[in-house]
């Protein structure tokens, strides 16, 4: 087939209309939805107990900072690992292929909580047994909890995203790669100029989801004593014994983060109208 076109015939430029031009935002049903949302928000503010908020605000901020650092760093580094992991499974020589397959399978196959626990309580307390390490410059970092949390999160994201990239790489039509090869592009160049951008574009809709999942995995670092946003919220809940308000606050923050992420990635996706 000569070309791939992902725009579907019945829904021309669906998401584009959502983002392009303010006109799209003022359709009647959107105004209605916005009003309902505002009303709900107002009701929450009016009828619920938010007196704890000012006292905890500084801690919430630093918790949010920790969450963002964990998220951005693990997604960024994890993605760099995901590319070779996905590619090796599609096009690598067999030892690499099996190694990356094994890695992805084991990591995806076991709970992140368990991995985190193994890194922190297993690996971490192993380090503590060696006086050489305890005396070294690294000990102030190694006795902290966040490096283990970051490693666990990164490994997990690399494995999950590696699987997605595997599918995306495999899905790029052979003809387009052949064209690149026929023009004498090296393997690296074929990858950079054709294979990777096409695969990335395919993976984008899923990528947003994976990053949001990762956002929701970050609270697990609380179990190894890293104080992220969720840990602060837990703390609020446990000292105020309010059931819903702190959670709703958490939801609001997560909503903003993932909303921004979704819009950003959707924009990337639509930048190339005909990609696929």
């Amino acid at each position, binding site marked *: 087939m000569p070309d791939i076109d992902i725009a579907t015939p019945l829904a021309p430029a669906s998401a584009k209309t959502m983002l392009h031009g303010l006109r799209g935002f003022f359709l009647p049903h959107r105004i209605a939805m916005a009003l309902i949302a505002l009303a709900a928000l107002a009701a929450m503010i009016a009828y619920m107990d938010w007196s704890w908020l000012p006292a905890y605000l500084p801690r919430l901020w630093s918790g949010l900072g920790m969450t963002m650092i964990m998220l951005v760093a693990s997604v960024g580094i994890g993605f760099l690992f995901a590319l070779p992991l996905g590619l090796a499974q599609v096009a690598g020589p067999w030892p690499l292929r099996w190694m990356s397959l094994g890695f992805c399978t084991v990591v995806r196959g076991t709970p992140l909580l368990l991995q985190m626990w193994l890194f922190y*309580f297993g690996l*971490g*307390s192993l380090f*503590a*047994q060696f006086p050489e390490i*305890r005396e070294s410059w690294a000990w102030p970092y190694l*006795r902290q*909890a966040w490096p283990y949390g970051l490693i666990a999160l990164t490994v997990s994201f690399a494995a999950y995203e590696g699987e997605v990239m595997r599918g995306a790489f495999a899905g790029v039509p052979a003809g387009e790669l052949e064209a690149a090869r026929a023009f004498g592009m090296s393997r690296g160049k074929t990858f950079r100029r054709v294979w990777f951008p096409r695969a990335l574009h395919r993976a984008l809709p899923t990528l947003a989801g994976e990053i949001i999942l990762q956002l929701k995995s970050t609270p697990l670092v*609380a*179990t190894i*004593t890293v*104080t992220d946003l969720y*840990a602060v919220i*837990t*703390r609020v809940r*446990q*000292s*105020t*014994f*309010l*059931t819903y308000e702190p959670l709703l606050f958490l939801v609001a923050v997560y909503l903003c983060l993932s909303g921004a992420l979704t819009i950003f990635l959707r924009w990337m996706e639509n930048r190339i109208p005909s990609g696929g």
Partner: protein
Amino acid sequence: AETYKVGISAEPYPPFYQPDSQGNWSGWEIDFIKELCDRIDAECVVTPVAWEGIIPALNTGKIDMIIGSMGITPERAKQIAFSDKYYDTPTGVVALKTSDVQPTPEGVKGAYLGTQSGSIQENYVSQYFADSAADVRIYQTLDEELQDLSAGRIDAVVGDALAMQPFVDSDAGQACCEYRGAVENDPDVLGRGVGVGMRQDSTELLAKVNAAIADIRADGTYQKLSTPYFGDVDIFGE
């Protein structure tokens, strides 16, 4: 007789309550629940609920009482009603032998402290120790804290003195650490002992429970319940 669902935390808290592999729960508080329910002439079903959801579970009627080592604090008392206390233990500090941590705000200066998430000790630490300590690590369970303590990644643990005792007595505990004494009490933070939680509209039940606790304490049953678990130590406090 009426039937009540009694909520405990699904995460074990030995020696107060813990399950065996068949899902049967045992422990001091389980025995206490049996005794209490006999006295108020009710059938009680022990229902494990995750600690996270235990107050909503009570308030939405999925359980009727909480008898799960829940400390009576002013904050909690805003949400649910508490009976009189049925036990009370001091909060203490266990520290590495190599450190010079003492159970006072000045004594924890520069130290890495561990405390358990959601406990009254956590509140205490954040109120009195957080400013002078180098870092406060919040753990999910006491076991994890003590493990990290013996690994040397934290300098001291602030926790329930009674619950930490088995560790201090163990070989691993004796090798690395020692009990440095109780912290100065602040009932507003550390609470006024542990009580039975109920919905705020269960006034009738509250009265009956309070009477029953007083009875159990008064007629020596309390002592009988405790001896198998704690020996001579009286966990009721003053």
